[in-house]
């Protein structure tokens, strides 16, 4: 593996800087966001590199749990921030976070114990990257699906209420929008699986190959990851949309849009 020096990274950073200058010249007013994001990447990844170093060396369940919890909480905040009309109050945070916990953790633990079978099962070298990849993808799926669901409830409130007026149950009245929300949450991973290897070489596999792993081994891991991500995203999205759509109605099956925040 070619070791990267600080100069190598600085060269890559200069490309981002160039892009920022270009967009400033063209007045696309995205340079600020771009630079902040680039700095965040550098700082966050450096920090997590150090944290991982310590955790890999200690290999204790306590540290792994703590880091997992921290990752979950940050991902939960991200899901909340990406929804324009999220639920007011703690619900806005809880729906996404709980659904991610349910799906990502279950799938990760399943993969660690049943598929990989390392000893101990929480070996951080496997547990943390797996959970990270699952959380990252589940997070996007849930955020897209919930944004879609709450948007539809707001935009199509006349239809939903018209259906209630005609004696439909809440789950019948919102069924179409529920289906659309779940669909849109799953489309990114479905597209990624369909295009994998043809249009794009997935990042994890590319990383392993760059690090010198035999391509066939890298591919096997990539397939495993893709399936885990699909399962995790699917379960998480399903859970979030089910819980979220139920919370759009009260105990008398009235559409409660006052539970949504105005953007």
């Amino acid at each position: 593996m070619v070791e990267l020096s600080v100069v190598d990274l600085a060269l890559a950073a200069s490309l981002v800087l160039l892009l920022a200058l270009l967009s400033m010249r063209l007045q696309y007013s995205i340079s600020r966001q771009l630079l902040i994001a680039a700095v965040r990447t550098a700082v966050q990844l450096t920090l997590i590199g150090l944290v991982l170093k310590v955790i890999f060396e200690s290999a204790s369940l306590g540290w792994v749990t703590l880091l997992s919890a921290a990752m979950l909480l940050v991902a939960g905040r991200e899901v909340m921030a990406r929804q324009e009309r999220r639920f007011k109050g703690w619900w806005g945070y809880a729906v996404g976070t709980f659904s991610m916990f349910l799906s990502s953790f279950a799938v990760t633990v399943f993969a660690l114990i049943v598929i990989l079978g390392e000893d101990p099962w929480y070996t951080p070298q496997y547990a943390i990257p797996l959970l990270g990849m699952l959380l990252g993808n589940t997070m996007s799926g849930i955020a897209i699906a919930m944004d879609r669901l709450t948007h539809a409830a707001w935009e199509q409130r006349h239809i939903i209420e018209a259906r209630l007026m005609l004696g439909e149950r809440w789950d019948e009245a919102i069924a179409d929008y529920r289906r659309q929300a779940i669909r849109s949450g799953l489309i990114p991973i479905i597209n990624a699986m369909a295009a994998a290897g043809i249009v794009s070489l997935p990042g994890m596999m590319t990383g392993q190959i760059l690090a010198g792993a035999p391509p066939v081994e890298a591919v096997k891991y990539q397939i495993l990851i893709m399936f885990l991500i699909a399962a995790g995203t699917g379960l998480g999205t399903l859970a979030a949309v089910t819980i979220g759509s139920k919370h759009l109605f009260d105990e008398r099956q009235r559409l409660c849009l006052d539970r949504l925040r105005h953007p």
Partner: protein
Amino acid sequence: MSKAPPLLEIKQLRRLMVGPVTLEVDVGDCLCISGPSGSGKSLLLRSIADLDPHEGSLWLNGQPATDILPQVWRLQVGMLPPESAWWLPRVRDHFRNGVPVPLEQIGLQEAMLDQPVIRLSSGEKQRLALMRLLSNRPRVLLLDEPTANLDPENTQRVEIVITEYRRAHKAAVIWVSHDTAQIERIANRHYEIRNGELLSQAIAGQQWLS
């Protein structure tokens, strides 16, 4: 012998600036509500259909609404909103129980059922939405300006269909209308909503009844 309970009973209903409203509606009643826009007529109907949270209680045939599943309540206390909503491509797809009366009676043609909803005018949609509501056979009709987009001839047709439905199915109607001539034609009770409260009004031409 105790008197049979009224078909619909509203006790101390309150919702935002509406109320307290207490009202008994009997089989065969056609009760008109008028009042300036923004006075809460629609809010009142929505609360009776149990679409909004409210204080007070609602009763159907002596049974409290809280003992009736919400979807069953709304089947029996059916509301027609001022703007109709459609969610399937063709008109016919919305009629799971068939069409209750021949469409010619309300000035429409049977062939309309196979048209895409987007081709219909607002007046056609409003009449079809009424048909869709009647196909559920509700006991109480909550009509929010059901003839607002109609010409005089079709307005009269709709009035006749609703009156016949009310008689045939022993139903009651609560009808929001601004048109005093219409109120004279259809109502046996008239209320005006003022500061959220219902004030009983005489119906011109019907004073001799009292």
